[in-house]
């Protein structure tokens, strides 16, 4: 197949030929025109074009689309192996959606139950919210270095990418750039996504300093709202921990993150293991440093969240003061493109700069004008957040589909005697 590296997954999202009604709805959600088939005919997905975001999947009215990577049984098996330490890395938006699979209202914050259920299943916890904070430190420092060099005229210490800087946490977006806009790769932040940072950190620092286990006996499982993450973990460059240990004499090979379970997959895992989510005792994991997170880490799940989190820290680093109003409204909400200007007084030199930022979510409908400006070299912005899914990861392709039983996916079967 074209456009894949060796050993990468080449297919994640597939249409079931037997179920597809040819209604064409999926096409209106696909950001990359990867779906083929005329109205009325059976549709199919071209994996070479697909970014694996799963937006077609969660929106197909006939439930004809599924994610073909199912590692629930593998993970259950690994949990039963005493030799292995299985670490769950939970994305921000899973905690507000998992409850829907067990009858709770959408948006119910279920962090405590989730921790409790994961512990009961035998997982150790490395909250991806910690990794989101970590991402802000790395990606924010990169942005600040660019501001100091390009806007304040200071000499650069490292090799720097270009402004505007794009966020890089969303693997759907990263694959989109690699496939459809490679000319802006130098604008993409070099910071790994929170999940991939978590994997690399878990199998180095986590293994030695937190859990005292051998990294090769660790299994890192991303618990994600996202089907595109199933592709991301298969990218061959994400084996930094193994590489780190190889330089220190080890011969073992392993990926930083072993597998991904979506929110839906995790609900199935709990069911298979007879863990009653509603009865589980809540837990905090308070003595685990890798389960600590800030409010900035958690808002990564929403469109505008990465930007808001980054501004809280960039403002502090440049001005020496905390952002006066933490709830930064201009980047919140569901408008397709959100913009903000933020004026900063550099504590070191006294210079005043105005940072222009933009937030895009829903590549399908909202990306084009912003991307065209950058490609043409006349973007007014310094920092741009992009998340593929409308609303951000809260609406990711791995999230519960039929939360309150109101979506007609599945329900139509109940109405029709011959199905």
């Amino acid at each position, binding site marked *: 197949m074209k456009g894949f590296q060796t050993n990468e997954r080449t297919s994640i999202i597939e249409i079931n030929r037997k179920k597809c009604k040819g209604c064409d709805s999926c096409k209106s*959600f696909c950001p990359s025109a990867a779906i083929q088939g005329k109205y009325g005919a059976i549709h199919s997905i071209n994996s070479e074009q697909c970014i694996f975001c799963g937006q077609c999947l969660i929106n197909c009215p006939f439930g004809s689309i599924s994610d073909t990577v199912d590692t629930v049984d593998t993970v259950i098996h690994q949990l039963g192996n005493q030799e292995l330490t299985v670490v769950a890395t939970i994305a921000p938006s899973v905690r507000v959606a998992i409850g829907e699979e067990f009858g709770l209202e959408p948006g119910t914050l279920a962090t405590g139950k989730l921790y409790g259920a994961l512990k009961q299943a035998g997982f150790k916890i490395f909250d991806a919210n910690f990794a989101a904070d970590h991402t802000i430190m790395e990606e924010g420092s990169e942005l600040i270095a660019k501001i100091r060099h390009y806007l304040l005229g200071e000499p650069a210490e490292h090799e720097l990418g270009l402004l505007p800087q794009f966020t890089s946490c969303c693997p759907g977006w990263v694959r989109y750039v690699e496939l459809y806009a490679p000319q802006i790769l130098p604008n993409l932040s070099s*910071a790994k996504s929170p999940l991939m940072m978590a994997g690399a950190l878990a199998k180095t620092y986590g293994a030695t*300093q937190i859990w005292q286990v051998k990294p090769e006996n660790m299994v890192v499982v991303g618990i994600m709202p996202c089907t595109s993450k199933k592709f991301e973990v298969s990218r061959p460059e994400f084996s930094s921990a193994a590489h780190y240990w190889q330089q220190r004499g080890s011969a073992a090979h392993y990926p930083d993150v072993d597998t991904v379970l979506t929110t839906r997959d995790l609900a199935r895992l709990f069911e298979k293991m007879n863990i009653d989510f509603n009865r589980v005792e809540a837990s905090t994991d308070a003595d685990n440093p890798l389960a600590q997170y*800030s409010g900035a880490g958690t808002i990564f799940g929403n469109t505008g969240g990465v930007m808001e989190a980054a501004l809280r820290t960039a403002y502090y680093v440049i001005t020496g003061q905390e952002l006066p109003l933490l709830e930064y409204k201009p980047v919140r909400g569901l408008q397709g493109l959100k913009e903000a200007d933020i004026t900063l007084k550099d504590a070191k030199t006294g210079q005043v700069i105005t940072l222009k930022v933009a937030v895009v979510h829903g590549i399908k409908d909202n990306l084009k004008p912003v991307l065209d400006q950058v490609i043409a070299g006349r973007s007014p912005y310094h920092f741009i957040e992009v998340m593929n899914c409308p609303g951000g990861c809260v609406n990711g392709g791995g*999230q519960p589909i039929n939360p309150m039983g109101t979506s007609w996916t599945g329900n139509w079967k109940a109405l029709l005697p011959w199905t």
Partner: protein
Amino acid sequence: MAHYDYVEKAVTVSRREFLGMVGVAGAILWTGAYAATDLVQDRNKYIKMRAQGIYKDDVKAKVRQSHHNPGLQDMYKQFAGQPLSPLAEELFHTRYIDRTKLG
């Protein structure tokens, strides 16, 4: 095209009533216009409810800025030094690929 900020309901019957009335064949004829808008209504509702849950988590957090995460501060102290240090570059940063050039 499916716009997530859709507010008006295109059809006023419920899905159940609709399917009951027209059956699958009718639904298929309609779905291009109907399914997308109606699904978007539902998704929009979930997006908003889940987003509120996330903002609640932020407000109730003891620490609200990444640079004040104590566990993260310890990690830099004991392990990676500081953001963009050589070890941080090795473990926490990556490179991208122009996929149009891959066979």
